[in-house]
């Protein structure tokens, strides 16, 4: 499978990265080189093999259902949450108008 510049633009759009026509052209051989190389995995016989989901067996835990069990991940820290926002107004994140 090899990709062309329209596929590159589609992928860039899915990834929300703006690319110019020139950049898309430049990315075509770069990405094809990498994809051509990883395609060798198709040679491996994986019949009956389960995909790995966890490298070390470890059961997922449930924490106690209490508010602010760990203050570091708890709530009531609005100003801290907003402190690094490029634009915060009235206690909210501000973004360009979404709905006309």
């Amino acid at each position: 499978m090899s990709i062309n510049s329209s596929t590159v633009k589609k992928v860039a759009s899915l990834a929300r990265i703006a690319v110019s026509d020139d950049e898309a052209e430049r990315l075509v051989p770069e990405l094809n080189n990498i994809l051509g190389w990883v395609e060798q995995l198709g040679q491996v016989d994986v019949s009956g093999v389960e995909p790995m989901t966890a490298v070390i067996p470890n059961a997922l835990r449930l924490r106690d259902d209490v508010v602010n069990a760990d203050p570091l991940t708890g709530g009531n820290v609005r100003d801290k949450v907003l402190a690094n926002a490029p634009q915060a107004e009235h206690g909210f994140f501000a973004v360009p108008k979404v709905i006309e």
Partner: protein
Amino acid sequence: MTELTNLTVAEIRDGVAAGTFSAREVASAFNAAVEAGRALNAYIVETPELALAAADAADAARASGDLKPLSGVPIGMKDLFCTAGVQTTAASHILEGFTPPYESTVSGKLWAAGAGMLGKLNLDQFAMGSSNETSAFGKVISPWRDASGKDLAPGGSSGGSSSAISARLCPAATGTDTGGSIRQPAAFTGISGIKPTYGRCSRWGIVAFASSLDQAGAMARTVKDNAILLETMAGFDAKDSTSLDLPVPQWEANLSSDLRGKKIGIPKEYRPDGLNAEIAALWDQGIAWLKDAGAEVVEVSLPHTQYALPTYYIIAPAEASSNLARYDGVRYGQRVLPDGAGLQDMYAATRAAGFGDEVKRRIMIGTYVLSAGYYDAYYTQACKVRTLISRDFEAAWETCDLLLTPTAPSAAFPLGEKQEDPLAMYLNDVFTVPASLAGLPAMAVPGALNSAGLPLGLQIIGKALDEQGVLNAALALEERAGFTARPEKWW
């Protein structure tokens, strides 16, 4: 007078406790070295005041008989760990100016143990790279030089850590390792570094790259220093769902280079045709050293080794494309808002301007292999091959306790040499990636200088949770290698 910046972590800890020197003297010496070492570009942010504050606390603790495990030890912190009140960027413009209001679990443990921060260390952008050339804050330069006099790569992604430690700009540092980012830079700069078992160190507060692979670890000049640092860094954290709920062993106290009764496996697939002759010779020497320490050496086979790198370069970009979706110009970091742009255009413009080329390349690869129609052919297939790679190790453990391999396929290369060819750069991780895919503890130790006077490293890989075995074998190598070379100061 002792050269304070040439002391190990253990020597600083013990010297401060004994009153041989004060913690303030040590911190001041390292602060001066950091300032004098700016030509290496190892630090993105310098925090001399934090190092001094921790030193003063250590000196006060000594006076009151209240010393902590790392009192008086100043360290460097890879700029992938969130540090409260100190800019954290992952070496990307997209996070420039980001000042976390919280502390990562691992860095918090180090400060609570008395360590002080000299500064935030440079790295490859979002830890993606093997030469530290992808940082938005400039390349890191290795303190090592060969006869060509060219600037050499310190390895990556923990290149600020490796450069700073080998240049004596810090006695030890944190690193993170996703596919070799602690071990390869350690090998390039003649220092040691350990990636523990996946889940030993909490990932909470570490800027995420590929979450099923990311693991924090230690970097320092001696095996013992690595044991000391890792003991403080490791431990259960409920805030990381993959954190292992196990007690932290006393790795330092149990260090022993007596390997009698241990079987060391030599994986034949790690000796491809065309393996650098000096690296092959060092590997043979390493085998002799481990035999001398009492170990029995056996050949083993890890048949899927050749598929490890392509597996990694599907799984890691796939996870990265998901993890890095959070950089949207809304909640933190840079925002680029072209005139009249809507929300979608703002996302795309912000990410185009904020991410470097290698990061964009990996996000695009990851997006592609996860996209409809390709998911099973690429991503699911890679996850299945990952199972096979992990099974290879399980099978090897039936006949041996540890593995000995080279750390990297070459010595440090000149900066710029591989930058134009992503695939050539990826091949640097050929010996380190398999252990990462299997979540196993692995450590790099310096073995010798090559004919050009540059360091070469050996790698020990162990069973899950057997950091002690890894450290002990590394110690046996360290004692026999007698590696004392250090770069000549030119900066």
